[in-house]
């Protein structure tokens, strides 16, 4: 259950494609990349606390997302990234209705702080500051169907990448995601005790990623394998056979594969594809899903 959370805001963008908040790429000044990503993810098991279970009244849960995104090079060392995903959720069993709509508007600034070129390799360090906010009045307190966690998020990420001139690279990143409060439509809820308010505190989270990848075909093709971890710093567990809520302590560990291909080097049309699978988690649907995307990069000024 819980789907929304994860890929909400930063979550999804992490694995997806070039010039994202998490990767080791920068757009040169004046270049713009427009991308559209389609993602389809499912789960038929979810973690109630840490207990992995099924639910006959959910069956298989599905989440589809269409996300337009724009990345622009303000300078060679500073990029801005904006995105606005449209999300649709449904379940194969049970009587609860799915929902759809715009999720969170995300804006992010990425800066390259270090670029150290050595004889056969280079080292790069980036920082990324992101902000996302709900883009529609979706109800976060309708899990697992809700589109997202319904709160603002301020994220700060550090990224380091070591790359050999021959193509292989290793990248690591770590982020702290500070989440605000979300408003439910009920004015009482239980979180290991009573809360006489509609305001729910969405837990902050640490998010880390390790990626091993390489460039091929004269830097027209990039392939990487990723390990992504997310850990909420607080929150409660889903209660027995009960629905999740935005206050839950969400955790997951996910592996993924990603490929991006540019028709020609240095711009123009590109394609990307990825697949992710969660192998451990807490208060979260065990998602597996793929994404496909189209990117177009051009010199704007």
């Amino acid at each position: 259950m819980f789907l929304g959370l994860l890929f909400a805001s930063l979550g999804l963008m992490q694995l997806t494609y070039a010039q994202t908040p998490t990767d080791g790429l920068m757009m040169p000044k004046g270049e713009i990349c427009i991308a559209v990503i389609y993602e389809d993810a499912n789960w038929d098991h979810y973690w109630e606390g840490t207990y992995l279970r099924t639910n006959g009244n959910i069956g298989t849960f599905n989440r589809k997302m269409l996300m337009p995104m724009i990345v622009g090079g303000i300078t060679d060392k500073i990029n801005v990234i904006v995105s606005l995903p449209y999300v649709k959720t449904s379940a194969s069993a049970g009587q609860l209705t799915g929902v759809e709509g715009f999720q969170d508007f995300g804006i992010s600034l990425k800066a390259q702080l270090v670029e150290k070129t050595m004889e056969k390799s280079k080292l790069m360090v980036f920082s990324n500051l992101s902000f996302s906010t709900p883009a529609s009045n979706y109800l976060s307190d309708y899990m697992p169907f809700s589109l997202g966690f319904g709160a603002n998020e301020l994220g700060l990420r550090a990224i380091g990448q070591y790359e050999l001139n021959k193509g292989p690279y290793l990248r690591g990143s770590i982020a702290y995601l500070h989440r605000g409060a979300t408003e439910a439509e009920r004015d009482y809820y239980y979180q290991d005790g009573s809360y006489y308010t509609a305001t729910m505190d969405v837990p902050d989270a640490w998010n880390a990623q390790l990626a091993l990848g390489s460039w091929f075909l004269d830097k027209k093709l990039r392939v990487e394998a990723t390990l992504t971890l997310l850990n909420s710093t607080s929150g409660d567990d889903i209660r027995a056979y009960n629905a999740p809520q935005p206050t839950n302590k969400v955790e997951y560990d996910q592996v993924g594969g990603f490929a991006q291909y540019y028709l020609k080097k240095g711009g123009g049309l590109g394609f990307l594809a990825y697949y992710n699978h969660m192998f451990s988690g807490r208060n979260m649907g065990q998602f597996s899903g793929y994404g496909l995307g189209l990117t177009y990069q051009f010199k704007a000024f």
Partner: protein
Amino acid sequence: MKIQLRYLFLLVTILAFTGSCMEDLPSQLEYEGYEFADLDEGAGEWKLILMSGNEEVVIPAPAAVGSAALNQELQDSKTKIANATDEQRKSVSYWTNNPLIRWNEIALELSVKYNLIPGPNADGTYTLPNPADPSATPNFPFAHPPYISRMLAYLSVAQYDGLITSWHYKEKFGRPAPYVLDPQIVSAYADNGLNSYPSDGAVVAITSREILSAMFPLEKEYLSKLADEHLESLVIAGINVTSDVEAGKLIGTEVAKKALARAANDGMKNAQTPKPKSDSIKNAAFQRFGWQWDNQETPQRPVGLTPLFGKVKMWNVPNVEVVRAPVPPTPGSEEFNKDAQELQRYADNLTQDQRRIANFWNDGLNTYSPPGHWNRFAKETVVKNRLSPVRTARVFAYMNMAIVDAGISCWDTKYYYHYPRPIQTIPGFKTILGTPNFPAYTSGHSTFSSAAAEVLSHFFPADAAKFKNWADEAAMSRVYGGIHYRFDAEEGLKQGKAVGAYSVAKAQLDQAD
């Protein structure tokens, strides 16, 4: 430019890591001890509910004012007050001089804690909680709305009879409070001049502990600790000496016994029937009307929730048939189709406001349920009107008797007609609220709410319009949510109002007004 942006990043980093901007969210009703609008000194003569007379519980005559024994107690009180820890002082401001509010809040929190429906076993069967072995999985109780409504009625009635008894002896013995007897003792609350023997706070602490321990057996220790803290706070607050507290405990213990004796034989233990009995109830409805409700969950639950709750002993209604709702429209009839189409329309075009109403009143699993919701309104209203403890108890007793009577009458109607839910009758219908495990007609939310509104309107006529609006909104919330037809809601409102009127009629004869 580049450099400046780097500084900006640094600044925001610091903000992001240090800036926690969440304020503390309220976890209880925000109120403090207050001056009572009226001491209700004659309340010892009000009509009791469980007890036959205001001296059915006998307490010893207190030590006289000026006696060595009482002076010693006052001395002990002063020592305790002087040595009070921060923790104990916090406890004094938590419990207040109208602690029934706090115990009601505790009752609601336990209701939420235990309001989890048992999930299926690996083989698709369901195990129900076992009162004989409460700690087995799933834990006892499953605090569903009928359970909560009945629990609140026993709690409130026991508190009420206990407080009437306490008021009677306060008047009879006339022993002033410690802060009146000794100028060195200061009341932590308003100096309202209420006589202190026997302690009304102790009556509330003990009746509450006893009733709630019986209703939530796994919480016995927790409740005992709360009661001890509460009892201790009475002396530290300067409103009671130890003998006041001891006499209050005596009353509380005896009244709780009386209430629990009624509870043991009110029919609740037979409410959750085995499958053959449940099937025979279903078949009877099918023979009579040609329709039947079936649970739509996967795996299917073999028995609905408490099919015989409608047979539980009522408090103020002479018999359940007098408030049974009329026959609902036959599925497929024109009248039925009109209301079914309305549900489809809401499902397709629910407005923001309708969604909000559906969710605000959802009060489903993992909540205090509609009975709890109305108890919350009652608490807020009592504090606003600065009622004395005994008058507070009166409001809760009559309201909660009406609420549980409403539940009983609603459940009688539900299983008499055994009417299918919209997800059963409308092909492919999906909802934003979970459909409960019992028949549709009449709506529990509507019946509970309308009964509660009727009683609250009697006690607080200035707010009557507001209570009625809330009940109407609670009723419609189920229609917006897709789990009730309009006729379930409308008949439920009528039924609840009729039930509430019995409780009001009884309250009118209790000599309190």
